């Protein structure tokens, strides 16, 4: 059983925003809605800046699904979290629940008028007939039904953004990291997110209390 995930290699992302543009273009996402965006970590810190591309992570136990008052979310057989826009009431609970800020709301007009939620669909469309005009208008392109992967991952010039079955893309990333030849520190906090400040060390875990004691 496939479980579709995204994985962004911070060592490779060059902040070109090609993934953002590909998503916008492929799904004709309206102005003001960003299904995908590039985030800079350690912004302004010389030598420590890293960029990663963020969208819906299609969580295995998605908090948006848990808080939705109208139960408009569902998960496909491939682990893609989707929702029914005809049922969505645009309450914004999912936005507050999501740790990645993935749910987006089109704002049409003044006074903070909020439309129905829109988010990354892993280019899997939604609950309309596959490849239909209705599906495209509401959810964007259904590339999975065309045997393709999300446009953002396939357009990534440095292949920093990988998309697909978690097992497969984890294998790709693992082999890539091993070929970089850095050694054991390659899995550490510093390599993943950068040291933060020059000379800074990764956070130290407190020693485990001896057995039989309670903290």
């Amino acid at each position: 059983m496939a479980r579709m995930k995204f994985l962004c290699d911070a060592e490779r992302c060059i902040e070109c925003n090609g993934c953002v543009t590909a998503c916008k273009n492929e799904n004709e996402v309206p102005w003001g809605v960003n299904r995908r965006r590039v985030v800079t970590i350690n912004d302004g810190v010389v030598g420590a800046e890293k960029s990663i591309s963020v969208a819906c992570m299609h969580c295995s136990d998605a908090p948006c699904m848990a808080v939705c008052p109208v139960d408009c979310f569902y998960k496909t057989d491939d682990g893609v979290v989707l929702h029914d826009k005809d049922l969505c009431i645009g309450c914004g609970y999912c936005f507050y629940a999501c740790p990645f800020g993935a749910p987006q709301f089109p704002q049409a007009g003044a006074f903070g008028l909020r439309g129905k939620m829109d988010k990354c669909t892993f280019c899997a469309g939604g609950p309309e007939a596959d490849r239909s005009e209705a599906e495209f208008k509401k959810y964007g392109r259904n590339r999975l039904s065309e045997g393709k992967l999300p446009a953002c991952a396939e357009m990534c010039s440095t292949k920093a953004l990988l998309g697909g079955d978690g097992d497969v893309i984890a294998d790709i990333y693992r082999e890539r990291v091993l070929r970089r030849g850095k050694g054991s520190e390659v899995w550490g906090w510093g390599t993943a997110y950068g040291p933060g400040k020059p000379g800074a060390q990764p956070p130290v875990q407190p020693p485990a209390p001896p057995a039989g004691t309670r903290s």
Partner: protein
Amino acid sequence: MRWLLVAIAAIAIAGLVGCGEREQIAEGKRSYQGKHDSKPWDNEPLSYGSGKWTKGDRPSWEEQIKTRQLGQHEHKRIYQ
């Protein structure tokens, strides 16, 4: 001896249950109230650029997607 066999069988069953996986079907823990969605493998491949699979055959669609995924692996795509 018999109680030992029963205990081993119980542990083995518990282990198998522990290694199980929750189904990722459309109807999850909470009941989805929206419209039914079709499966991606229930579509014909495009005439150009979408690879090949048999309509309705999930394994062949998954094989096509896996081929596409490995296209992201430049070490395999370029050097092999």
